[in-house]
C-alpha cells in the first residue's frame, strides 16, 4: 500500500473481509448483534463489540449459538435490524431457530464463514461445505436466500444487500463466505452506493403476510399496542396457532416460499465473464471463483474458449442462467471446495456435460488444478 495517504480516497481502506462485513452491516443500519465466538468468524463479533455500542446499537455475547440466533430474533421483533455470524458447527446449532425465523417471517442476517468440516474439522482452514446446510438444514419446506461474496469489497456490499433482502422478503438471509474471503485483506471503497431499506411503521395490518398475494406485510414490533401473536407453530396471517388445519399450513408455506422462489432471477445474480463464446464455462462462487478466474486467462491465452459464471447468490439457485449457459456450452465445470454440492444443482438443470474440480482438504483450489481438468 502507498505509504502516502491519499485524502481524496480516504474512504478506500485496506481491510479484511470480516471487517468489511461489519462496515456493511453498520451501513445497512444493523443495530443488534447477538453472537458466540467461533473461528473463522470471530473478528466480526470482536469488531461489533466495539463498533455497535458506539453507534447506539446493542451487542450481546450469548451463551451459545442457539441463544445467539434466539436473541437476534427476539431483538428483531423488538424493532432491531439484527445479525449474527458463525461457522459450520455453530450454524448447525442455529438451524432450528433459523427455521423459526422463516416461519415467523423475521428479518435477520446470518453470516456463515465456512471452515473445513465435517464436525469440528479444520477450524482455521477454508471450505465451502455449508452450501446444503444453509439450504436444507432446518426442518420443513422453505426457500433460502444465500449470498456468496468473492472479495472484500463484496463482503461490504453484499452485507448491505443481505440486510435489504431480509427486510424486503422478511426472512433470514445468509451471507455465505469462507475463511479465505473473510481473512483476505483488500482495498475497499466504503463510499460505494448503498441504498438501505427502512422498516416502515404500520399499524393494524396482519403481521404475517397477505394471503392473496403472498407478499410480506411490513415487519411490526413489540411494544406498540399491536398485541402480536408470534409462534413457530402453524399459524394464520394474524398469528393464531392452527396446527391441524391443512389450509392454514398450505398458505403459510406458500407465503414464505413463493415470494422468494418467484423472485429467483432477481435475487440470484450471476456474473458472467467471457461466456459469450465459451465452450467451457467454469461455474464457481466465493474464493474458488478467484481460482477459476485465474485459470481462465492462461486457458484463453492457450486458445481455449473458457468463460466464468460466478454465482453471487447460491440460493435461490439461479437455474435459468445455468440452463442457458449449459445450452450454449459444451461443458460446465463446477469449481468448489466441497465434493460436489453446487455441481449436483448444476447437473439438475444443465443440458450439457457437467464435471467439477472439488477439494475439501482445507486448501484452496489452485488455478493449475482447474487447468488440468480443462485441458
Amino acid at each position, binding site marked *: 500500500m502507498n505509504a502516502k495517504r491519499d485524502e481524496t480516497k480516504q474512504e478506500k481502506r485496506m481491510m479484511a473481509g470480516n471487517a468489511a462485513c461489519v462496515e456493511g452491516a453498520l451501513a445497512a443500519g444493523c443495530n443488534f448483534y447477538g453472537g458466540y465466538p467461533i473461528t473463522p468468524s470471530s473478528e466480526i463479533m470482536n469488531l461489533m463489540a466495539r463498533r455497535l455500542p458506539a453507534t447506539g446499537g446493542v451487542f450481546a455475547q450469548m451463551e451459545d449459538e442457539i441463544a445467539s440466533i434466539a436473541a437476534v430474533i427476539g431483538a428483531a421483533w423488538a424493532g432491531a435490524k439484527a445479525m449474527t455470524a458463525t461457522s459450520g458447527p455453530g450454524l448447525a446449532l442455529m438451524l432450528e431457530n433459523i427455521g*423459526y425465523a422463516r416461519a415467523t417471517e423475521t428479518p435477520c442476517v446470518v453470516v456463515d464463514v465456512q471452515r473445513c468440516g465435517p464436525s469440528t474439522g479444520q477450524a482455521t482452514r477454508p471450505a465451502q461445505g455449508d452450501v446444503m446446510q444453509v439450504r436444507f438444514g432446518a426442518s420443513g419446506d422453505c426457500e433460502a436466500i444465500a449470498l456468496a461474496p468473492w472479495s472484500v469489497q463484496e463482503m461490504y456490499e453484499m452485507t448491505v444487500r443481505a440486510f435489504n433482502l431480509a427486510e424486503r422478503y422478511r426472512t433470514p438471509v445468509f451471507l455465505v463466505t469462507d475463511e479465505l474471503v473473510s481473512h483476505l485483506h483488500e482495498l475497499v471503497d466504503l463510499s460505494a452506493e448503498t441504498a438501505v431499506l427502512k422498516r416502515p411503521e404500520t399499524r393494524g395490518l396482519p403481521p404475517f403476510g397477505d394471503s392473496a398475494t403472498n407478499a410480506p406485510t411490513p415487519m411490526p414490533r413489540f411494544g406498540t399496542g399491536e398485541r402480536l401473536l408470534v409462534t413457530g407453530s402453524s399459524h394464520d396471517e394474524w398469528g393464531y396457532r392452527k396446527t391441524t388445519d391443512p389450509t392454514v399450513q398450505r398458505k403459510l408455506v406458500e407465503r414464505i416460499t413463493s415470494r422468494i422462489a418467484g423472485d429467483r432471477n432477481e435475487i440470484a445474480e450471476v456474473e458472467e465473464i467471457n461466456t459469450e463464446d465459451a465452450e467451457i464455462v467454469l461455474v464457481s462462487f466465493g474464493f474458488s471463483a478467484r481460482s477459476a478466474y485465474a485459470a481462465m486467462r492462461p486457458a484463453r491465452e492457450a486458445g481455449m474458449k473458457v468463460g466464468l459464471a460466478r454465482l453471487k447468490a447460491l440460493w435461490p439457485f439461479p437455474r435459468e442462467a445455468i440452463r442457458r449457459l449449459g445450452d450454449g456450452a459444451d461443458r460446465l465445470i463446477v469449481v468448489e471446495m466441497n465434493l460436489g454440492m453446487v455441481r449436483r444443482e448444476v447437473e439438475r438443470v444443465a443440458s450439457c456435460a457437467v464435471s467439477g474440480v472439488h477439494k475439501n482438504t482445507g486448501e484452496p483450489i489452485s488455478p493449475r488444478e482447474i487447468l488440468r481438468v480443462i485441458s
Partner: protein
Amino acid sequence: MNVPDIKKYLRSEVMPTPFCKGCGHGILMHAVLIAIDELGMEFDNMLFVSGIGCAAWIPSPHFAADTLHTTHGRPIPFATGAKMFNPELDVVVISGDGDLVSIGGNHLIHAARRNIDITVIMANNKVYGMTGGQLASTTPHACITSTTPEGNPEREFDTCRLALGCGAGCVARYSVAEPVKLRRAIRNALRYKGFSYVEALTICPTQFGRMNKMPTPFQMIEQLREVCVPGTREQVMAGDVPEGKVYVGEFS
C-alpha cells in the same frame, strides 16, 4: 372484596383454554394476571415469551399482549434479545420445567448470572405433560413416569437453589395450592429490577397424578399442601430439605 376483572387481559376468541381437566396452569394464569393488575402494569407494554409445552400456552395465545411463542427451551434468550434491544418493554417468560430447566437449563443459569431485567415464571408440574408424561429433570426421586416405569432413579433439580447459586437476586417458590402467596411472589418478581425467578409448583393429574397414586386434582393439591414447608434462603442454599418436603417462600 374487590375482585379484579382479568377478562380484559385475555383473548376471549381463543377461550376455553386447551388445558386438561384439573390442570394447575389456570390457577397460575390467574395469579399472573391478578399480580399484573394489582401493580397497574401497562399490558400493551408487556411482552410474554414462552417455549414449548403446556405451560408455554399460558400466555400464548391467551394473553392480549405481545406474545412470542418460541422453540423448545429457548424463550429466555429470545426474551434477552428483545429486552436488551428495547429495555422499556416489560418482559416476562412463562414456561414449564422441561422447557426452562431441562432443555433450556443453560439459558436459565446464564440469564440469572447476567442479571438481565426479566421475570421468569416457571410452571413446575414435574413431568413432560404434552408429550405423554416422560421423566423430567424436576421429577422427584422414585416417581413413576412413562420413561421410568420402575421409578425415577435420579435426583431432581431444586431450581430455586440453582437460580440462587447463579446469583439471581429475586427468587421465590410457591405452589398453586397457595395462590395468594404465589401471587404476592409474582408481584414482587415483576417489580424487581434485575433477574427474577418464580417457581410455581403446579399439578398435572393427567400425566403425573395418575401414575403416582394421585389421579384427582384434589389429591394433588392435598399433596402439595403436605410437602410444601416454609423455608429461608439459607435453608434452600444449604440444600438440607427434609425427606419428601420442598421449601417454599421468597428466598431473597
